[in-house]
């Protein structure tokens, strides 16, 4: 069906970005209502789009009325509508916490920050919407460049981390672009659905394999798939708090979604694009990645840095699940994209809340936090349980599907890696819970900690944190409808 509704979801933050830059320059007070208004509108529209796709099928919009395959098409089906809603909702929630952090960290550069911030969100939405392989590259670059800028706004080593990311990100973009170039030479088109129609005729060609390999490597670097993850920990740790809460939950997840989307578009049961050997190889890589990243997380002494390694391990979950190439694994991956975005958001919000009050996230600084910030820690605990995979939080159910997929595919190394990582997560988070619960043992001879007074995070950070923690449980309990009504629809029969 023709519609331009989903275009507005993306247009709202994009246009507001420029308005924020113009008006926010002189009057800082207008920034918060403008940003929140735009993202709130986006979220509402995204809900409408999701409902509409569920009722009347895919919605399509062609830019400049050029018909595909020549024109650029913005296409939304139930799955991308779900992703759109996820991006809109996560960024809306994250913005509440970003506002006070930015106000404190970047007083006279707030308008710059939020310009980049909104363009990044629009770029992420564009990635999900576009049906054109080259347009995808453009969106990928928009998100990357804005992210470089946001990270470089941080303190200390941030510019260096950002530079590191620029190099890796540019390498990735080149790989992706080369791959798309090959595909264009082979098929003469850039529209993804159109490309997919030509592919069966090209099966077995070395050029096609090269093209796909380049595209995949490009995406793998962008999503920080082990061992191509080197840029991520420092970049996410050094980013300003306001940017971290947005980038960490969304960037890697959206890139994984792109990989899944390409796999679903290009592959069909009659036409297995990728041989069994390659599949097994990738699953092994994912399993090793999960184990290594989890082990590296154990070595960290800083909460945020630990979380970044967990993100890398989770990327392994999702890549592995998608490459299992069965129903359960693919369901697990798609479900985990949603769940992991929310879990990461919850934990990063908690980290931001703690950093806002205590100034540092080093483990030594977390002692006695249950007494000082009881609500923040309560929500952090829920996020931690979700990450470990304790039911009824959502983290359990996606892990369930991933494990089931691994068992059905007979890929036991993946099953073992997942369970290992769950156990490591339990250790990681209980180490923090223990620190925060026991405080320093020297002065606990008398049970009262008179020195540690209660100093809860500000409402602007605490309320989105509370909302996310509740969402973790609500989404977990509505796993059945979510999988049944949206995710399963999008996985071709016999995949």
């Amino acid at each position, binding site marked *: 069906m023709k519609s331009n509704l989903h275009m507005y979801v993306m247009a709202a933050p994009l246009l507001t970005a420029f308005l924020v830059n113009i008006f926010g320059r002189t009057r800082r007070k207008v920034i918060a209502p403008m940003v929140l208004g735009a993202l709130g509108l986006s979220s509402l529209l995204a809900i409408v789009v999701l409902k509409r796709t569920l009722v009347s099928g895919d919605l399509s919009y062609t830019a400049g009325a050029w018909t595909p395959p020549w024109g650029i098409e913005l296409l939304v089906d139930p799955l991308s509508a779900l992703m759109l809603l996820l991006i809109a909702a996560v960024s809306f929630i994250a913005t509440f916490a970003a506002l006070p952090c930015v106000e404190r960290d970047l007083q006279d550069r707030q308008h710059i920050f939020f310009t980049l911030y909104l363009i990044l969100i629009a770029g992420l939405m564009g990635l999900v919407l576009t049906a054109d392989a080259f347009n995808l590259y453009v969106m990928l670059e928009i998100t990357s460049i804005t992210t470089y800028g946001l990270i470089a706004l941080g303190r200390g080593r941030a510019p260096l981390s950002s530079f590191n990311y620029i190099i890796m990100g540019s390498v990735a973009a080149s790989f992706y672009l080369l791959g798309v170039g090959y595909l264009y030479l082979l098929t003469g088109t850039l529209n993804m659905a159109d490309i997919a129609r030509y592919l069966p005729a090209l099966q077995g060609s070395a050029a096609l394999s090269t093209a796909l390999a380049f595209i995949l490597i490009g995406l793998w670097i962008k999503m920080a798939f082990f061992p191509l993850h080197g840029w991520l920990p420092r970049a996410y740790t050094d980013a300003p708090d306001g940017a971290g809460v947005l980038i960490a939950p969304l960037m890697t997840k959206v890139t994984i979604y792109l990989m899944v989307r390409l796999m679903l578009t290009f592959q069909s049961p009659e036409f297995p694009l990728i041989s069994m050997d390659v599949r097994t190889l990738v699953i092994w890589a994912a399993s090793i990645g999960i184990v290594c990243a989890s082990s590296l997380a154990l070595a960290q002494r800083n909460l945020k840095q630990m979380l970044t390694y967990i993100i890398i391990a989770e990327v392994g979950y999702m890549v592995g699940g998608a490459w299992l190439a069965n129903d359960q694994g693919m369901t697990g991956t798609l479900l985990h994209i949603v769940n992991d975005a929310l879990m990461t958001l919850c934990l990063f919000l908690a980290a931001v809340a703690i950093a806002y009050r205590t100034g540092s996230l080093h483990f030594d600084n977390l002692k006695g936090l249950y007494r000082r910030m009881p609500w923040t820690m309560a929500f952090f605990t829920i996020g931690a349980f979700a990450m470990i995979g*304790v*039911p009824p939080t959502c983290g359990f159910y996606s892990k369930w599907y991933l494990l089931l997929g691994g068992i059905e595919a007979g890929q036991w190394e993946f099953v073992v890696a997942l369970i290992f990582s769950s*156990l490591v997560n339990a250790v990681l988070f209980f180490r923090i819970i223990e620190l925060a619960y026991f405080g320093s*043992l020297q002065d*606990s001879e008398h049970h009262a900690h008179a020195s540690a007074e209660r100093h809860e995070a500000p409402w602007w950070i605490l309320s989105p944190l509370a909302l996310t923690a509740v969402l973790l449980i609500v989404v977990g309990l509505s*796993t059945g409808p979510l999988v*049944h009504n949206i995710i399963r629809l999008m996985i071709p029969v016999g995949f």
Partner: protein
Amino acid sequence: MTPIVSIWPLAAILVSLLGALPIILAHRQPNLRESWTILIALVKLMIVASLLPGVLQGSSYVFTIAQVIPGVPIELRVDALGMIFALVASSLWLFTSIYSIGYMRALDEHAQTRYYASFAVAISATLGVAFAGNLLTMYLFYEMLSLSTYPLVTHEQNAEARSSGRKYLTYILGTSIGLALPAMMITYSVAGTLDFTSGGILAGKASPELLALLLVLFLFGFAKAGLMPFHGWLPAAMVAPTPVSSFLHGVAVVKAGVFSIFRIIFDILGPETLQSADLGSLITYIASVTLLIASMVALTQDSLKRRLAYSTIGQLAYMVLGAGMLSATGMLGGVMHLAMHAFGKITLFFCAGAIYVASKKKNISQMDGLGRRMPITYLAFFLGSLSIIGMPPLGGFISKWNLLIGAVEGDQLVLVVVLLISSLLNAAYFFPIVYRGFFVPAADGEGDGIKEAPLFCLIPLSVTALVSLALFFYPDTLLKLARMALGI
């Protein structure tokens, strides 16, 4: 009979989960806070009791909370086996709440609000385990129980509590994630369902090798049952305040483990399926080893609570042993022992706490002559230990008698010998305590001024001791429930 859709099972779980809120809100008014606790405990017991007549007539109550995975909703179902556990847990929680008031106030413990709130969450999780309608739901509440009891185990917040807390989580979470979860996933992918069905869901679907693997994973995966070598958390957890040890480590937590194993043997793997794969002996051997070693270790413990902890490990193995016999009488004995041991062991723990409150003594070697100063406590202790040993006229006799008959009927001479030796060992580690209390005079000047613990402590422990006695004369309801649960 067809299941009846009813909200009451959910209400029974929620009443204490939501009840944690008023408990927290009343943190400045201890009297109000404890009134809430008692009120919630009473309401909970009433709800559970109101479901009893229906269950006795053979109906079951179901309630679906959420659809999560195809064929496996989060679902509650009240049947006879769940009813036994729920009745025991919710009635003993009431006594524990009363006892807690006496114990915590007498010792002027810190963070009492956290204590009562965590307790309320823990009992919700316990009832959830009892009322779970399928394995996934049971796993969910099992994990909730593990996590909600962590603040209780580490209540003291000192170095010892911290290391015990670590041990507790490592054993309990490590096994449930590392062993029980994969076993559950494999079961689901083989059977396509996780519903508790009497006779099991794997009949004809799994090879004997797979069955053996699943059995071992489940037996050790539910480490709350304390089967060796995954028993180490229980003695360590004794660092908790005594009401926690008595209720959680005498009743709720450990029985949740045994109850889970019952569900696995009766309703997931299925006794007949296990019988035909000849796996009963595997269970009984694992249980026998645990039983004998734990009883012998109990002999060597001087700390009263640690001795009770090892005794618990041994008694839990009795229950698993009974289930592993896979014969009607044996299984009946196992199920009955779950209830009988609960009343006996909680009495013993209550007494240990009362002794500590009254005299600050933890070690058996210091307890000479105490029985003359605390006659009621010691009498209750004597009754409780008789029940655990399995002597008439106490409830424990009924379950142990059934276990013995089951072993004889099954021609399993080894088990008969194990049971007899173990009963002797039980007597050997309990009687000296009572003997010292009454007949060994205290050293000069020792024990002056020691008198019975506060009434809040004394009344619950007397009542539970008397219930142990009463269960010998009136075991009919429990027996009927147990027979219904086993379909005999």
